[in-house]
């Protein structure tokens, strides 16, 4: 079951455009290493779940993974072979809107090599370019 909100005020949302850079959630705050997004885009609940599992298997019984984004935005789609019109389609999946600078997930309690491996597995599951960042010391 992919991630999605439990309760929403409106079932469907407009698509909008992703503009600018992230101004919040740009620091490694919980773990020691993080994965910072470099593109603008959407990360679906399914992709996040796949990324989480990939990191869990890479970390095994060590360390902890923190996922810093949540798919709040409903994306609707029309069924295949349907004529245009008759209103907006039904919500198909949910996405997290990400901007350059967003720290998508963090890893803590493991050495750098292991964190690097886990986050590398994570980035293979994502539709955006990312890079590894460390907790800032200044």
């Amino acid at each position: 079951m992919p991630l999605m909100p439990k309760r929403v005020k409106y079932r469907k949302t407009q698509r909008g455009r992703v503009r600018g850079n992230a101004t919040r959630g740009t620091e490694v705050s919980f773990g020691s290493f993080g994965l910072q997004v470099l593109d603008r885009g959407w990360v679906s609940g399914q992709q996040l779940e796949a990324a989480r599992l990939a990191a869990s298997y890479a970390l095994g019984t060590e360390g902890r993974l923190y996922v810093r984004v949540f798919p709040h935005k409903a994306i609707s789609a029309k069924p295949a072979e349907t004529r245009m019109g008759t209103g907006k389609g039904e919500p198909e999946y949910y996405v997290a809107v990400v901007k350059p600078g967003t720290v998508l997930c963090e890893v803590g309690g493991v050495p750098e090599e292991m964190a690097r491996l886990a986050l590398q597995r994570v980035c293979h599951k994502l539709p955006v370019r990312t890079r590894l960042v460390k907790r800032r010391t200044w």
Partner: protein
Amino acid sequence: MPAVTLSAEVRTTLGRRATRLLREKGLVPGIVYGRGRPPVAVAIAAEALEKALKGGARVVDIVIGNDRDSALLYDPQPDMAGEHVRHVDFVRVAQDVAVEVAVRIELKGTPAGQAEGGVLQQTLHELTVKCLPRDIPEKIVVDVADLKIGDSRRVKELTLPHGVATAVDSEVTVATVRHQVTAPEPGAAPAVEGPAEPEVIKPEGRAEAEEEAGEKGGEKAGAKGAEKEKEKK
């Protein structure tokens, strides 16, 4: 830590456009204030400032023209990518007056509980301490080697350097060793399925009106059904 000297020039043009032009020239906008003197907007060479920050400098000597002040490097604002500094504050300090600063906490050693399957989790990464500017420690090292599963290291257990005190609650946890929450095996039965779609929050008035309408509808339908049954009889 050797004393770091930063030379700055006074900024006369303020605002977004002026600061953008400054950054393009390789300068960082900043402000010097404190000790009852008027604030001065300054510009500092980005390279020197970043070198000082990465070197762990906390108190620097800032030279503006003929003035030389001892100042605390305070609240450096990183850019979106976290590589460069966008703005920095310099708080003038006296060498004989205590200051409050956040100092990094570094964990040392592998906890004993890790061998039993525990996971070390650091919950406090910075400690706010009060001390004289010359006594500011670079970091506070916390030994966690003896922690077993379920054990924690609290603020009261930290050994702070001489002349350094903290006002942080002594019961606050710095690090703990917890049981590892294991991930489900690949191919294992999926977790309990929730609803396929989120619940829609309705405004209170509307929700009540709909409920009432539903009840009335139900009553009417019930009455009609009874009438029909009577007619049939």
